[in-house]
């Protein structure tokens, strides 16, 4: 078990290094002089040289990368060109709305997704099953930003029930959370249905039925509990992508979170911030995947024994 843990954790380090290098190169891959790109056409030669010096662009590339890594390890993500504030400070300020949004989206989508999946599996081939799977495939196919706009039009503009954007009250979170969680809900519904169908066909379920246990108990205690391991894995993997999904949803609902910061920073060519956010979203994604893998190893011994 210990070896499996160490192997998986060590295996992630090269990936993190490669990703950090690619994201470091992001500024340099954009055509043209990176300093000119940030400062704009109006900047004088003196201003450009000062900026080049202060951002370390005058050093050789490999030195720049090592000092970037060194800063990273010390939690220094650089200074924003636009606001002159430390990037890490800007990100911390924006983290809360994004995390809250992700939490609410995960919460409702997990409950509703699993419920739809289990109900569909138990009623396989019946109307409930078809309806459940119709909801699921629609959830995967619907453009989140469009759903968000349609809901704003109906519930905010027409009915005035919730604010159109911003984060003034708890009600501001309702529409964005629904929008953000829609995809996961759909994926979970499909996944928990097939996982439930698998476990409903297992011998232990037949045994439980043969013993004369009530159907509800058979479903909940035997079939559902055993299908949960895989469902938990899917939830974990999806949360990783959710934070990045906030880029679109925060733009639609004008929420001052990390996703919105990315879009704004790109528009302002504030590349230090863009770089830091790309790094944050990718690292978060890789680490959540790692945690899910490790958890899966704990829950399912067959994996770690391979």
């Amino acid at each position, binding site marked *: 078990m210990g070896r499996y843990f160490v192997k998986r954790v060590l295996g992630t380090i090269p990936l993190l290094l490669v990703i950090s290098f690619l994201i470091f190169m992001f500024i340099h891959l954009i055509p043209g002089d990176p300093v000119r790109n940030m400062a704009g056409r109006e900047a004088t030669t003196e201003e450009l040289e000062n900026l080049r010096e202060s951002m370390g662009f005058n050093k050789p590339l490999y030195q720049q990368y090592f000092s970037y890594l060194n800063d990273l390890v010390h939690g220094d993500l650089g200074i924003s060109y636009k606001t002159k504030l430390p990037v890490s400070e800007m990100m911390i300020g924006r983290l809360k709305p994004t995390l809250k949004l992700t939490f609410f989206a995960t919460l409702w989508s997990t409950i509703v997704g699993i419920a739809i999946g289990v109900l569909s599996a138990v009623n396989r081939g019946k109307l409930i099953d078809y309806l459940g799977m119709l909801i699921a495939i629609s959830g995967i196919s619907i453009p989140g930003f469009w759903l968000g706009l349609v809901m704003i039009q109906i519930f905010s503009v027409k009915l005035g029930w919730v604010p159109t954007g911003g984060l003034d009250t708890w009600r501001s979170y309702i529409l964005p959370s629904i929008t953000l969680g829609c995809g996961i809900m759909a994926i979970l519904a499909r996944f928990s249905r097939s996982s439930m169908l698998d476990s409903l066909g297992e011998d232990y379920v037949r045994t439980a039925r043969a013993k004369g246990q009530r159907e509800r108990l058979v479903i909940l205690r035997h079939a559902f509990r055993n299908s949960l391991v895989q469902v938990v894995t899917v939830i974990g993997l999806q949360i990783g992508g959710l934070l990045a999904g906030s880029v679109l949803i925060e733009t639609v609902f004008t929420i001052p979170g990390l996703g919105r910061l990315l879009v704004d920073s790109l528009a302002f060519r504030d590349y230090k911030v863009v770089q830091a956010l790309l790094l944050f*979203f990718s690292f978060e994604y890789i680490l959540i995947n790692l945690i899910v893998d490790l958890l899966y190893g704990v829950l399912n011994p067959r994996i770690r024994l391979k």
Partner: protein
Amino acid sequence: MQTSTFIDQPIKKAESRAKYYFRKFFQRKTAVIAAVIILIFLFFAIFGPQIAPFDPSLPDYDNLYGAPDAVHWFGTDEFGRDVLSRLLVGTRNSLGVSLASVLIGAAIGTFLGVLAGYYGGIIDSIVMRGSDILFAMPDILLAIAIVAIIGPGIINVVIAVAVFTIPSFARIMRSATLSVKSSLYVEAARSIGCKNSRILWVHIFPSTVQSMIVNFTMRIGTAILAAASLSFLGYGAKVDEPDWGAMLSSGRNYLDIAPHLVYFPGLLIFIAVLAFNLLGDGLRDTLDPKLK
């Protein structure tokens, strides 16, 4: 009454594989409906400019933000242009971008995946680590990063979406290749002295095509969504170009006075993605039940 026994019956010719697949596919009503919808979209993509009732870029300043009526079925936009005509003409852009990007991604991914699965060793390691790197970033983020580097515009959206399509094909085709690599007919081909390239592309590749078709269809849905998302964020088609995502993006500014500018483009994106996903589901059940 004539009694017929099993032995008396004439020997039926075995159903060809294609016929068998067709029969199985046509049993799935949702997939058939989805296929019909996709055909209609393809028709719009080809003949959109011809069947559009109005010139999609002709402004009409007397009829700004017009609600849907008998003349303009889907209403008019902020320049008085006919929304239906713009959507019909925009089909080519929106479907074209996703089809092109998935085609490119599928071609590169398939090539790499088949090579990795067949040769193994260092090629396999390089291809798989490469796809690990691409998989380490959420799709939409990777696409945004690529477009930020190479710049906005339709061609660049195609490249961005193609890049994040590559690893899924590489992985699927690798495992499909691995599963047929050690089969008897490949051994036979090798034993009669076939060259590696012939074994790869004549013997192994055709038997992996089924997995590719299924993934191809599914990825088109994802690509339409990704391309529309990029256009929505302003990295795709220009705002005045007839493109579903771009129309949605500009329409959101008039959500309170002309919601139809948001409703219709989004609805088309939704229907198109839904159709490709349903078709993908149907094809998977028909061609490759193991993938379920």
